[in-house]
């Protein structure tokens, strides 16, 4: 008999559980520490572990108890009452009697079973509650009782608020209780502010296993079973891909992983399938049937549909299969999500729904199959674990007496032949969610495994792009060269491979080789138009980086004139050419490019937003165009859901410059409030310049400076305001300020520095900067500053900081 009980970890040998513990070590040791502290000090902890069935809750509390039992010092002061999961309590009275029963089983001499007899004699329930409370406390003496409760949510359902208040009062009045509880989900009784136990428990969620954790689990299972083959396979590339697919199949559910691990590398399934089906039917089915009973008919149908499909589904598909509108299904799904029946995953802009508890699907399947047809979970498992050739081989070799094994392998084999590789399907699903621009090591590994399994040119290309984006061009080139050597590669993939090749050569600094490839592509008559446009675009941007603006503009113009790229790419070329025009000081041409992409609505919101900001920025320096600049910024501000937040803040900050220059102080303040944000405030210098220039004494400056300081302070940006203040020193030669004016300006900042430490250094440098100007630009005044501060100010003033060393 296995030492690990799949459905009753509390009956398992704790040492075996220790051996396969993965990802929960922190939670277990944290819980043990908390209970230890509760036993030895006046602190009393109450912990609640939340997770769906099979997530490892019982495993966890079994180990908490096991570890505590191994601490003699703690156990001198601690008594553990592990409540029987199958019993219920409808009142605090019955709960305390349960606790007593649990204690008397383990500590019969301290908590004699018959000692509660007198409690049963009391007909008055409050008298009985008082009596059992006193009895428990008396028998407990100075010790603390650790109450281990599974399914706390179910207990609260039967309790009701009145009993919850009683229990809470009991715990508050007698500080000798410590709790470690579990629940399938967060529930009103602990998560609602009006509930007596709101915030009472330290809640820890048991998250599904990640692929890495699942791998670790299987490695530990292999070690526990002394299965060297499995141990080796788990760490191999093939094994890794299969565990990832298995992860898909199980939703990261710990119990399912343990179950499926028993089927790994088994030649025969004869002795495993039957007991497994029975176990599922007896232990899971009643539970899930009970849960389904509480749902409305439509909600039940949704759950049943999700049970019948192997992977997450979009709303559209669910609505179609249930002959309902997407809106109705969406609403029901949202309710089901709140009730923890389903979970949603994001794929791009689409929400996909799946069962929150993968075991529910299994139970549904067992019910549906009725022992007649193979369970899909196990069939899918075989399809994932063995490739097609392996399945075919096994089907041929299975002895005719092994009907179950034959049925499973035949089904898996047939499905693989008709539906293709489930392994590749799962890997592709996972890979679809990868953002290549933010590719982690684990993502790279997945892309590599996928291309190894699927051997498709598209997957190879995607992997090489990911490598390139991670600055691993050498490895990417190896992949690309393999693609270039392949035959029957679709033209557009081949074009993409060649484009990637020159990008990788460029990244590796192999300029000559890169140029050779670029010229070969541009000069070859058979080059496709789109590849040519892309390569020209690539070369244009390279020219830009080298500061060769006219060559860059010429290449990008050729791309634009060819008009062969899709509109979103063309919009980017317009944007890039516009930006190059800005660098080359061709402002009118820049405005034309930005206007073209804005007017023709060809780009994404981000591209258009950048163009509007840039066009506005150029226009705001022309008096006659400030209104149209404001209009550009306002377009972004008015459409907050369309543009990125960062861009909207920039629009606010730039609008504030125009408002300030017009003396529209209230609007400027409103823009600043929305726009100032830590690390983004490049416009600070403009604000300071304008505020200083728009007034000539403290009566005008004081309120404006205070307002600016407040806004920067509220947005944690005072350091940037200080930097802007130091930078602004150089403008004193442009602003026609009297000596008195300069001193008043400086005094105002000095006053603010008293309240804000971030402004102390800037105010000091401003003071010396002003002394520099009032002394007729005498550099010796800078010598009042320590050398590092002197250097900062010299740079701000545009002086050669080395002069004072002469």
């Amino acid at each position, binding site marked *: 008999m296995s030492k690990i009980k799949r459905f009753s970890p509390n009956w398992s040998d704790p040492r075996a559980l220790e051996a396969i513990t993965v990802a929960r070590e*922190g939670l277990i040791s944290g819980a043990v*520490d*908390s209970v230890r*502290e*509760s036993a030895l*000090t*006046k*602190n*009393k*902890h*109450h912990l609640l572990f*939340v997770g769906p069935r099979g997530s490892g809750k019982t495993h966890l509390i079994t180990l908490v108890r096991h570890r505590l039992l191994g601490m003699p010092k703690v156990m001198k002061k601690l008594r553990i009452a592990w409540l029987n999961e199958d019993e219920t309590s409808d009142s*605090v009275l019955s709960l305390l009697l349960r606790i007593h029963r649990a204690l008397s089983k383990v500590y019969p001499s301290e908590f004699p079973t018959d000692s509660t007899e007198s409690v049963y004699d*009391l007909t*008055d329930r*409050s*008298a*009985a509650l*008082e*009596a059992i409370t006193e009895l428990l406390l008396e028998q407990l003496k100075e010790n603390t009782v650790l109450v281990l409760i599974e399914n706390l949510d179910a207990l609260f359902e039967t309790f009701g608020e*009145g009993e919850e*208040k*009683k*229990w*809470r*009062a*009991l*715990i*508050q*009045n007698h*500080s000798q209780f410590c709790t470690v509880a579990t629940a399938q*989900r*967060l529930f009103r009784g*602990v*998560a*609602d*502010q*009006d509930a*007596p136990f*709101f*915030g*009472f*428990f*330290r*809640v820890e*969620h048991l998250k599904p296993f990640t692929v890495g954790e699942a791998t670790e689990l299987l490695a530990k299972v292999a070690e526990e079973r002394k299965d060297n083959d499995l141990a080796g396979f788990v760490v191999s590339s093939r094994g890794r891909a299969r565990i990832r697919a298995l992860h898909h199949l199980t939703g990261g559910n710990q119990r399912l992983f343990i179950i499926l691990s028993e089927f790994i590398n088994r030649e025969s399934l004869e002795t495993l399938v039957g007991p497994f089906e029975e176990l599922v039917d007896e232990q899971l089915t009643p539970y899930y049937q009970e849960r389904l009973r509480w749902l409305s008919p439509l909600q039940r149908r949704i759950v049943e549909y999700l049970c019948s499909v192997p992977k997450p589904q979009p709303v559209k598909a669910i609505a179609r299969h249930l002959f309902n509108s997407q809106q109705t299904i969406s609403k029901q799904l949202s309710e089901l*999500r*709140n009730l*923890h029946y389903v979970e949603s995953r994001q794929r791009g802009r689409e929400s996909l729904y799946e069962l929150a508890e993968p075991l529910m699907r299994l139970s549904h399947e067992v019910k549906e199959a009725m022992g007649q047809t193979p369970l899909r979970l196990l069939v899918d498992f075989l399809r994932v674990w063995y490739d097609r050739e392996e399945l075919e081989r096994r089907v041929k070799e299975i002895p005719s007496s092994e009907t179950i094994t034959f049925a499973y392998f035949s089904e898996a084999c047939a499905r693989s032949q008709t539906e293709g590789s489930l392994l590749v399907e799962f890997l592709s699903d996972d890979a679809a969610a990868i953002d290549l621009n933010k590719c982690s090591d684990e993502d790279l590994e997945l892309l590599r495994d996928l291309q190894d399994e699927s051997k498709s040119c598209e997957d190879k290309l995607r992997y090489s792009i990911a490598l390139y984006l991670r600055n691993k061009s050498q490895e990417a080139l190896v992949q690309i060269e393999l693609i270039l050597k392949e035959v029957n590669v679709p033209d557009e993939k081949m074009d993409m491979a060649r484009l990637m090749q020159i990008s990788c050569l460029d990244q590796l600094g192999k300029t000559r080789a890169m140029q050779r490839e670029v010229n070969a592509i541009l000069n070859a008559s058979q080059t496709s138009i789109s590849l040519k446009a892309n390569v020209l675009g690539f070369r244009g941007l390279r020219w830009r980086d080298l500061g060769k603006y006219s060559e860059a503009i010429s290449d990008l113009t050729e791309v634009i004139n060819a008009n062969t790229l899709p509109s979103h790419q063309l919009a980017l070329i317009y944007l890039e050419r516009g930006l190059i025009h800005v660098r080359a000081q061709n402002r009118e041409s820049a405005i034309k490019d930005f206007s073209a992409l804005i007017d023709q609505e060809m780009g994404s919101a981000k591209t258009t937003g950048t163009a509007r900001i840039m066009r506005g920025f150029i226009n705001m320096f022309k008096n006659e165009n400030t209104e149209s600049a404001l209009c550009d910024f306002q377009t972004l501000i008015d459409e907050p*859901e369309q543009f990125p937040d960062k861009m909207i803040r920039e629009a606010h900050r730039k609008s504030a410059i125009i408002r300030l220059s017009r003396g529209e102080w209230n609007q400027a303040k409103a823009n600043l*409030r929305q726009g100032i944000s830590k690390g983004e405030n490049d416009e600070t210098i403009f604000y300071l310049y304008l505020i200083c220039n728009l007034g000539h004494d403290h009566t005008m400056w004081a309120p404006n400076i205070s307002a600016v300081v*407040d806004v920067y302070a*509220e947005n944690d940006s005072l350091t940037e305001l200080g930097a802007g203040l130091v930078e602004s020193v150089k403008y004193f030669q442009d602003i026609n300020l009297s000596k008195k004016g300069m001193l008043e300006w400086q005094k105002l900042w000095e006053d603010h520095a008293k309240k804000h430490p971030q402004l102390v250094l800037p105010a000091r440098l401003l003071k010396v900067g002003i002394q520099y100007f009032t002394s007729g630009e005498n550099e010796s005044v800078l010598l009042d500053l320590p050398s590092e501060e002197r250097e900062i100010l010299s740079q701000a003033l545009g002086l050669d900081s080395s002069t004072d060393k002469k």
Partner: protein
Amino acid sequence: MKSNPGGQLAPEEILGRDEFIAELWEILAGRNVYMNDLRRIGKTMIINKMEAEPPPGWVVLKRDLGGLRTASEFATRVFRDANSLLSIKKRSLRRMTDLIGSVEEIAGVLKLKNGSVAPWKEVLSRTFADLDEDYKTSEERIVFFWDEVPFLLDNIRTDEGPARAMEVLDTLRSLTQDYPSIRLLLTGSVGIHHVLTELRRDGYNNSPLNTFERVAPGPLDRGDAIYLADQLLLGEKLKVPERGDASECIASLTGDVPFYIHRLVSRMPKSKEVTPASLHDKLESELIAADNDWDLAHYRNRLTKYYPNGNDETVVLSILDSLSGEAGGLPVADLMNRVKSTVPKTDDEQIRSLLKLLLADHYLVRNSRNRYTFRLEIVRRWWGGGSRTVILTIRLS
């Protein structure tokens, strides 16, 4: 020191409340106290610490009354607590013994010698009289700390009817007048004014707690909050590159509320570094998670119940929306202008009276610059974020 959000803390680990507790003892020397504040602000921890460390001359009898359902259960509980105190000193409650005979074997509600239930008012007044007599000549004073009193009143109202709840309140008032040597410190997280409002609907006109000093502990001082965060970061052995920055950030994000400080620290993963950025991210992800147990939506949801008249709820929402974007708060004039620009059918008078109620319900405070601002920074942040989420959801749907 380990984080223990919601659990019971050893008295020495209840930080930052010493000054407030000293003030409470000073007040108790002259008056009874009603301590009311938001849930999880730390009221129970304060009375636990006071019970554990009373100044010389005080005898404390602390009890959470939230589980009691009837006036008789309440009176019995008070008697039993008083009795256990005196029996330690080998003394007994004379008047009560006259009433019920021997008290050795009492279980449940008190019974008269003839077996009928002892009248609860009689039990309370005799118990108080006995205690008063016993301690009159002593240098010690008795103080009852009764936790969750609004729960008790609500339970009695539900189980025995509003008239009984009113009687209990009036009895408490007369006991405090008749036996000034005995002090009461009552606490509750539900505003007693809401319980009274319910009772007033049933005809109650008295003001039973108007002789009580009303206090609200509120969040910790910033310095204490930082110190607490610092101690917890240390105790939890988290990886913290800049403890000062992280502690300050925790205090600021949680609005200096010790429970939220404990909770945020307890939720930080041990495997990653704790920085201001990771703290911001963690709190934000916690607050927007579908499965979250912060329940800050409570502050929004209960408005419907608390402000049922006319367009009060709309005006209150406008007040809170206006303040949620203003970390530094708003002066009353600016606030009124903003509210009037969004809710045309309101006036200064209505806004003023609602502001007063929002102060009583602990939504708002006036800060040192006399500006209205959210009492809890964490609620302000959630309110701002929550409103935006709602707008986005509407637009997307």
